[in-house]
């Protein structure tokens, strides 16, 4: 959209007959803001766009003034009177666009609930997650879009998912090319003595990065002392001299022209940098900054630039650069990466940006300072020899029992406790004999067996056969029931549709219960309404599962609970919509779902399916029980204000 907002002068009218409050109407993508000119008047308005459902306006040429009527989703309306029709036109178009946009978004897997400020990237991430995981999308649709959970609540339990997704993306920045600048060959036309170098901002940046001296020279000379063109001409002249290996000529030229000499001399910045680098080197070991960096003064060991012979002339040594130095420097710059994120347009800005980033890193380097102590620390840290240390990657965090006596003493006490009265019912072995007698009989049997030896035969063949047959029988029946594969569960044998249905119920009930329990203890009225919302939804799912086999009475109980909840909180819109769902004809629909599951399950599996469903019921029952107990406590305590949190 071209512009994100529209501001117009208008009058705000609550009804058509209202004369209206003059003020300024400002519409952004998210909200409509009306500020009256007279700050004391009451017509201030701040409405979010998502509540706006549609718009009506008067037509040009009709007898009516230019009015715009925005209807909200609670059937209220906001009427604005504009000064002229063109203003109305603008606003109308804007509203139209915004409404169209929100409409189209809600068709996609939506996450555009503007109640929290989300960056576009985050939004993108969520949409992506929803798209990839249909299960998640289903849940999202069921709960967030129906308004049971807010966007934030839904995602709060899935932070990990988001983080993981976000971590996947790492920004990759474009680095330097690995080609060396010395590879840029001049083009000659062959006839004249003219040599042409082609420069691009890319190359310039690289030159600056690799040769700090050139960089410094550029900053000092251009544009005060010479033009940029002259500067580069000088630079390439120096380069050219290098490439011709003519160190005598180089020396001669340097003597004449002190600016040129700058390019020909050893790069003192580089030298000092490498010296400081050596000082910073980890005294124990650091392979990438060894003494080699200090070898800038030594002639290279028979490696020649461009493969040609080099004549050593010690007096002109100053004006020679070695290939290995160039390569090392180039490699370092490439590895360092591109620190500058400017559009490569202007040489000057490139140079300055580079200077800035240098500064930053050097200040960082200084903060690193206080080197001597650091080094000592490091030495002592590093001289710990790892081989001699015990492996410290314990796979488990040991359970921390704060006071072991607490734990063990309580266990001890429990072990000694006579739990007789509680468990009297389950006690099977009535001790009719004294312990002396029973021990005696045991010892007797031992002496019997000592005297007689093992019983022969140990088992009667008939019994053995009977046992074997029974076991074989049970094996073959379980094989039939459970399926060929012992790993295969009942679920795998259900028709696919029912299996999915069941799993979906499971996940949605779990999601709801998670939010339900997470809301306890209830400390704010916000949580209070949320619990109610979750509960009603829970009830609904419960209904879905139960309706088929519930007796009428039970059914009614749960419905009436739902009614109580709803009568307490009529102001929560989605509850009222659920009310219709519950009490209306959809009741029949819910039971239909359950009947369908039941009906299409093969008869031999029905029992197992109800076994699968039972834990669901239990979990829901527990939630409902907890809720009811809590309600009772609440109503008992605050009988005087039944709508305590209204």
């Amino acid at each position, binding site marked *: 959209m071209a512009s994100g907002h529209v501001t117009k002068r208008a009058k705000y009218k609550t009804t058509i007959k209202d004369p209206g409050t003059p003020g300024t109407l400002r519409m952004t993508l998210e909200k409509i803001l009306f500020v009256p000119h007279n700050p004391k008047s009451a017509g201030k308005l701040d409405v979010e766009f998502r509540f706006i459902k549609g718009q009506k306006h008067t037509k040009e040429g009709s007898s009516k003034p230019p009015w715009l009527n925005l209807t909200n989703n609670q059937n209220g309306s906001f009427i604005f009177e504009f000064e002229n029709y063109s203003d109305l036109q603008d606003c109308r178009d804007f509203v139209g666009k915004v409404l169209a946009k929100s409409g189209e978004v809600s068709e996609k897997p939506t996450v555009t609930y503007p109640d929290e400020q989300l960056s576009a990237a985050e939004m993108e991430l969520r949409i992506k997650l929803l798209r990839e995981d249909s299960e998640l999308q289903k849940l999202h649709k069921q709960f967030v879009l129906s308004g049971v959970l807010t966007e934030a609540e839904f995602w709060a339990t899935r932070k990990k998912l988001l983080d993981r997704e976000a971590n996947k993306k790492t920004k990759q920045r474009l680095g330097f090319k690995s080609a060396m600048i010395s590879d840029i060959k001049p083009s000659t036309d062959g006839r004249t003595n003219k040599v042409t170098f082609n420069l691009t901002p890319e190359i310039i940046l690289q030159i600056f990065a690799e040769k700090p001296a050139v960089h410094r020279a550029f900053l000092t000379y251009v544009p005060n002392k010479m033009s940029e063109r002259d500067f580069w001409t000088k630079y390439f002249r120096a380069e050219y001299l290098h490439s011709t290996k003519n160190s005598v000529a180089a020396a001669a030229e340097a003597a004449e022209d002190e600016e040129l000499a700058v390019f020909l001399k050893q790069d003192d910045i580089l030298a000092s940098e490498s010296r400081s680098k050596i000082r910073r080197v980890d005294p124990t070991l650091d392979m990438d900054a060894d003494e080699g960096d200090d070898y800038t003064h030594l002639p290279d060991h028979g490696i020649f630039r461009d493969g040609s012979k080099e004549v050593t002339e010690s007096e002109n040594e100053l004006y020679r650069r070695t290939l290995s130095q160039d390569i090392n420097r180039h490699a370092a710059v490439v590895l360092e990466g591109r620190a500058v994120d400017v559009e490569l347009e202007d040489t000057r800005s490139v140079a300055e940006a580079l200077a800035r980033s240098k500064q930053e890193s050097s200040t960082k380097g200084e903060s690193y300072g206080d080197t001597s102590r650091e080094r000592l620390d490091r030495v002592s840290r590093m001289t710990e020899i790892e081989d001699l240390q015990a492996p410290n990657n314990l796979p488990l965090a040991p*359970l921390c029992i704060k006071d072991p006596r607490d734990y063990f003493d309580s266990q001890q006490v*429990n072990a000694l406790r006579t739990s007789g009265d509680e468990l009297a019912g389950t*006690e099977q072995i009535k001790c009719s004999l004294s*312990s002396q007698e029973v021990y005696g009989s045991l010892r007797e049997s031992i002496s019997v067996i000592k005297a007689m030896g093992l019983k022969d035969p140990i088992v009667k063949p008939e019994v053995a056969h009977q046992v074997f047959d029974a076991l074989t029988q049970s094996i073959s029946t379980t094989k039939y029931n459970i399926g060929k594969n012992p790993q295969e569960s009942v679920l795998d044998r259900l028709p696919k549709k029912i299996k999915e249905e069941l799993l979906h119920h499971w996940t949605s009930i779990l999601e709801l219960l998670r939010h339900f329990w997470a809301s306890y203890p209830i400390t704010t009225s916000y949580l209070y309404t949320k619990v109610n919302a979750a509960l009603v939804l829970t009830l609904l799912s419960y209904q879905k599962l139960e309706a088929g086999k519930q007796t009428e009475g039970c059914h009614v109980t749960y419905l009436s609970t739902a009614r109580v909840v709803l009568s307490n909180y009529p102001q929560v819109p989605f509850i009222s919509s659920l009310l219709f769902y519950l009490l209306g004809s959809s009741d029949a629909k819910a039971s239909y779902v359950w009947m369908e599951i039941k009906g299409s399950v093969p008869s031999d599996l029905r029992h197992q399916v109800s076994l699968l469903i039972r834990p669901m019921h239990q979990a829901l029952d527990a939630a409902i029980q907890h809720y009811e107990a809590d309600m009772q406590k*609440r109503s008992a305590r605050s009988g005087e204000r039944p709508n305590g949190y209204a």
Partner: protein
Amino acid sequence: MASAPSKLYADDVSLVVVLVDTNPFFWSASSLSFSQFLSHVLAFLNAILTLNQLNQVVVIATGYNSCNYIFDSSSDLNQSFENGRMPVMCSSLLQKLEEFLIKDEQLSKEVPEGRIKSSLLSGSLSMALCYIQRVFRSGALHPHPRILCLQGSPDGPEQYVAIMNAIFSAQRSMVPIDSCYMGAQNSAFLQQASYITGGVHHKPQHLDGLFQYLMTIFATDLHSRSFLHLPKPVGVDFRASCFCHKNTIDMGYICSVCLSIFCKHHKKCSTCGSVFGQAQSEAASTSDKKRKTPET
């Protein structure tokens, strides 16, 4: 091609640690007499030792007041008891068992009335696991270990925590716990033990055919188990005992820090000392005013 040598013997070499229930109160009421039971078990042990020369059997008596090792095939094979009436191992086992019972009886004097007559399964399970750990650490090669519980006494809910700890440590060291329950009701502990560790749980229908059950189901070595169906219980009783009153419960409170189980709401976890959220009602009224309510 042979892969790199592992520390386990090939195939079917097994170490079976058998926990024998010697609770006198159970045996005095059982339909299977103790001497019959012993002959079934002794023949079974002998069969295990016969199967492979390297097989090893350890027997631990699970008594009413104590438990102890009563046989270890790796050390107890002395010839002196040989009398031709029964396998060599049996006589030494019986001797030790008798001594054990006498000691166990001496300990029993001060036990209060009314306690469930359960045997000390937690103790013998721990001893079995200790033995197996020692074998694991002892040397180059060791057999595949497994534990077999021959249990008849009812579960003692007060042993819940100790037994579960033993079960989990067995699970971690990959030692399956087989269980054969000869009592009247089924044992939730043993069902869980076998389920969690991947062992077999079975409750024989005909107790006089116990030997056949032992041979058909529990003599199967771990190697062969990957090729065979073994009887599976229809369902597993997963109920836990609470830490506070040792009641068996199906629903309760769990400490979110250390996962201890309680049957009632507590202010503080007795195991790890974490303080739980205050009771919801009081907190609601006090902090409601202070906290800013996020409005939807």
